[in-house]
């Protein structure tokens, strides 16, 4: 009797139009899922592939370098910068976390990339604070090198490229936030540190021009052109000044 009831109930289910429709929908979806799996297997997307873009190559090569030497601050910084460039922020955070979890001293080059990551993820205020820390670390590092050289009787000038990086990133953020006076001050320090950057002179010229300081702007553009006579951004800037763009 029970078996008979069950048989009839099954028959009722099978003849229910909604059950039939749902069965067709399940079948169609199952076929699509299987197709997706077949496509993945056929095209080999699941296997490790050679890089297809410069960004993929850079991140792949830096990933290998990072795995080999996770405590090298220069590799960590390069890797973080490459990941930030392709908007893989979670990976960049993970690299930073791994680096910081090791027995590593503070490294300005990594701190600058931490700031870049913060800025890229929308926290520009925190990024500026971290950049100040990075700049302090870079200045301390420079001072330490100078003292070391002095002990050995060397008085050669010491450059601090990381300090310049920190300052220029700071300028980018400040300019975007229209804090132009602070941006100019950071640019001044960057140019004092490395006075051979035609693009940065031209950049300062642009900011001076937007603040209406025509003479300062002209002087900056001319300095840039003194280094690279056909430097187009500086020529454009001068032309805007001459053309009464201001």
């Amino acid at each position, binding site marked *: 009797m029970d078996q008979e*009831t069950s048989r*009839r*109930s*099954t*028959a*009722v*289910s099978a003849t*229910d139009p*909604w*059950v039939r429709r*749902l*069965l*067709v*929908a*399940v*079948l*169609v*979806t*199952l*076929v*699509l*899922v*299987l*197709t*997706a*799996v*077949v*496509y*993945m297997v*056929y*095209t*080999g*997307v699941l*296997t*490790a*592939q*050679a*890089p*297809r*873009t*410069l*960004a*993929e*190559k850079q*991140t*792949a*090569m830096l990933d*290998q370098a990072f795995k080999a030497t996770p405590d090298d601050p220069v590799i960590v910084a390069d890797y973080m910068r490459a990941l930030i*460039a*392709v908007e*893989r922020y979670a990976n960049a955070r993970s690299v930073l976390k791994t680096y910081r979890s090791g027995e590593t001293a503070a490294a300005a080059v990594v701190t600058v990339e931490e700031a870049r990551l913060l800025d890229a993820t929308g926290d520009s205020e925190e990024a500026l604070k971290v950049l100040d820390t990075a700049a302090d670390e870079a200045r301390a590092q420079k001072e330490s090198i100078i003292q070391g050289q002095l002990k050995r009787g060397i008085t050669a000038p010491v450059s601090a490229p990381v300090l310049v990086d920190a300052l220029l990133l700071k300028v980018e953020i400040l300019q975007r936030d229209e804090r132009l006076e602070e941006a100019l001050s950071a640019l001044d320090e960057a140019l004092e540190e490395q006075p051979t950057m035609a693009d940065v002179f031209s950049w300062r010229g642009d900011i001076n021009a937007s603040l209406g300081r025509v003479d300062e702007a002209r002087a900056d553009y001319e300095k840039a052109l003194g280094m690279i006579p056909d430097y187009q951004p500086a020529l454009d800037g001068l032309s805007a000044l001459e053309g009464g763009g201001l």
Partner: protein
Amino acid sequence: MSSAGSRRATGTRAALIGVLVILLLLLVGLGYFIVSILEPVGSPAKSELPEGIEWVRSIYGYGPSANQQFISPDHTEIGPDGTIWVSDTQLNSIFGFSPDGSLRRRIDFSQLLEEDSWTLPKGISVSPDGEIFVCGSSADRIFVVSEQGELLRSWDVAQPLDCRLYGDRLYVTGLEGVSVFSTDGEPIGTWGGRGKSLDELDLPQGVVVGDDGTVYVADTLNARVKAFDPQGALMWTTKAGITGGMGTDRSSETSGTGLQLPSGICIDGSGRLVLVDPFGFDIVVIDPADGTVIGRYGEFGSGDGMFGYPTGISYDDARDWFAVADTANDRVQIVRIPDSGETGVVSAVRRALVGPVWICAIPLVLLLLVALVAAFSKRRRPKEQQDITHDAVSSGIE
């Protein structure tokens, strides 16, 4: 009994809805995964590319690790099945890639040849039956290998740089100009010895043969492109290019064609000559009728879509794209340029179908089968019911 059946049907519906939701979620997840993996990370935006260049993808090597990257890709060739063959002089190998960029085969001459020789493989040409002719420029030999990587035969040629099959002949450019061989290596003829005069050639890095048998040669160090008839008589030559150095003035007033170091050369789907100029960092399009330069595409740079010393180029008619050996950037770039092939819906569909997209036809076929089975069973059911009714009526009469 009726309520038990109803409960059963409700339970079945709920179970099926649950299964359907899970499958749909799985499908969406897989779709997202596939799309995110197929789209290369950091692909250049259209606005970042030089005018006229459409970037498809780059191939940086044959695997993900640092020692699997190209060092000096030199020439490319598209096989009859779309395989992209690449020679890398520093890796002493040629590589075959499927059109989606995955490695099919590496043929390493260091392993292939028993003697310890550095062949410096350059130009490649593939026959319709899959034999691969490779210029071993420092070995002074042409090597013929199978797609499986077996050495079939080889013969001597002084510093061969590029080669091209045309019917049963192989045209080889090298130190001695153009040498013509049978595909078994029997010498047939030679012309254009090394020199600066119009009918001479100076280390020509590229050769291609038109449908009518015209032999077009990139006369590299003379900064010209020359056309010869099948017997080797000069038909035309481009105006003098620039032989002074890299990246100088391209304008036709001062430099004729503006060619500086014409290298790899091929013929596109529109019948135009297309070559690369390593010192111009671009792709140059030339009218095969008279050698007039009709277009230049490309800029110097390391970003994808830019060129740094491109030396080899080949054309895939089925996909209407070019494989460019971008030597100084250690990569091969797959790019398109304007007017190189057929346009319109038919060619777009044809191009789409030569890729792995055809595999998506599987669900359509399966669904069609399901629909056919359903339709067939629907047709059978009323007939069976009709038969049962007929039987019942018959037995009632009896």
